[in-house]
């Protein structure tokens, strides 16, 4: 618990900056909707018939001139990519920052066993992701209220749940990366999260790459799919859950045996 509090305190500023940027972005775009709705309307049909581009952004399924379509194609993109980047960055620094910052000799000579360090640091990462989500959800709710719009609560809850799973999966993989590295791999982590988003886009456009849908958590958490089907595709989501559970176990196993550089 001491480590959890310590990590939350250390990452609080980063959380506020990221959640503020993404949340404010979502809020701003939602408030713009009322003003741009009329100008989007004539183009909505065109947006839906732009072939691969429309498929990639989910505009073939939903009307972007409706709040549901606008939310699933525009707001969800900011929320998903921003959230994944935050999760990736948070996970990637959790363990490796101690060695890079030369604080490992202080932390690992306190009476914590390494498994508990991994456990509490993983818990802190998960909690930071959850707090990020909550801040963004509040911002989105304010945006919807400000725009005088509403969305189906059940679908929205399903979407937020899938987003949480997606961000935790991205964070978990990057957490594993941080158990393997002695330096903070922020660039690699951010690149990894963007790659996962691109993998989702590609597997939707190129039929031969459909298998990628099992590898990228952006697939099962895609807002357009969830708003149309009112469900989350279970197989990729279960794989995500498996990754999420395996990652801390693997991280602990690696970290337990590793020499820490001071």
């Amino acid at each position, binding site marked *: 618990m001491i480590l959890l509090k310590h990590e939350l305190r250390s990452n609080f500023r980063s959380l506020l900056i990221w959640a503020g940027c993404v949340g404010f972005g979502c809020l701003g775009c939602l408030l713009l909707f009322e003003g741009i709705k009329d100008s989007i309307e004539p183009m909505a049909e065109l947006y839906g018939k732009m072939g691969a581009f429309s498929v990639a952004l989910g505009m073939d399924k939903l009307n972007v001139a409706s709040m549901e379509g606008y939310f699933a194609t525009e707001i969800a993109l900011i929320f998903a990519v921003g959230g994944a980047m935050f999760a990736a960055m948070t996970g990637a620094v959790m363990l490796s920052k101690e060695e890079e910052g030369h604080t490992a000799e202080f932390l690992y000579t306190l009476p914590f066993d390494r498994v508990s360090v991994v456990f509490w640091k993983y818990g802190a990462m998960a909690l930071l992701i959850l707090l990020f989500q909550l801040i963004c959800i509040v911002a989105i709710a304010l945006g919807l209220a400000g725009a005088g719009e509403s969305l189906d609560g059940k679908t929205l809850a399903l979407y937020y749940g899938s987003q949480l799973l997606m961000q935790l999966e991205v964070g978990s993989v990057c957490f594993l990366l941080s158990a393997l590295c002695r330096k903070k791999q922020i660039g690699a982590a951010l690149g990894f999260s963007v790659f996962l988003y691109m993998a989702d886009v590609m597997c939707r456009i190129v039929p031969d790459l459909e298998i990628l849908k099992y590898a990228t958590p952006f697939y099962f958490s895609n807002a357009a799919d969830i708003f149309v089907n009112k469900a989350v595709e279970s197989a990729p989501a279960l794989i995500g859950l498996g990754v999420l559970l395996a990652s801390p176990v693997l991280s602990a196993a690696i970290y337990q045996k590793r020499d*820490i550089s001071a």
Partner: protein
Amino acid sequence: MERSEEKRYAIEICDLVKFYGKKAGADGISLRVEEGDIFGFLGPNGAGKSTAIRCMLGILRSYEGEIRILSMDGRRQRREILSQVGYMPSEAMFYPSMKVKDVIRLAADARGRECEKEAEKICAQLEVNTEKRIRELSLGNRKKVSIVCAMQHKPRLLVLDEPTSGLDPLMQEVFFELICEYNRQGTTCFLSSHVLPEVKKYCRNAAFIRDGKIIRTDSVENLSRSGLRRIRLWKQGREQRFDYTGETNGLLHKLAQMKPEDVLIEEPSLDELFLHYYEEEKGGKA
């Protein structure tokens, strides 16, 4: 590992081997430090002092050999060991954005102990400003924070890795006063250093380490009385210098044969002793 019935050891290291790639950081280190001792661990930079300490504290895991700290197994009882050990690393690094008081509190909380009074006492003695952030501190002041973190919980064993580097002479005095005070209360002190005078002044026993090997372990008194003597003699207005190792009678006999007009027999400094033991070790191996 052979255990003595009468003596209790704070540190027992048996055949410690640690390689960094092909380079040996520790090459068969065996060492025993009695409880209640102030033990000096002497060696030049890169000799393997920090490697041995990091193995003792479990920061390094992939080593061969056996380590027992306070009669506990170094591999399996690491948590219990660390709760009774205070460690001051050679480079004191903390979280830059944290305040000094928060770092001290974190170290105390990790041990689940209320150490506020002791921490306040040490901070006052070392003149530590607890309201400052770590990033605002000089190396010397970070060292002071490290001393507080290592001592506030009154550990049974203090492991100090080059503790005085970065501390001004006045603070070094205060620091050693603290060490002696804790030692009087029963704390064993393991002092790794390359500053020989401080070891001679404060330690009862010491070990010399070089290239990952222990060259010699003995009481500081015996190490100082190695039988090595620096001889300066004057004969017919010319000065001659030589080193002598062995019985005093032999030296007197040799001097009588040389018939000097004047002679000066000196004890070597610990620096010279270190070189002497090192040369002896090399000679023995050759």
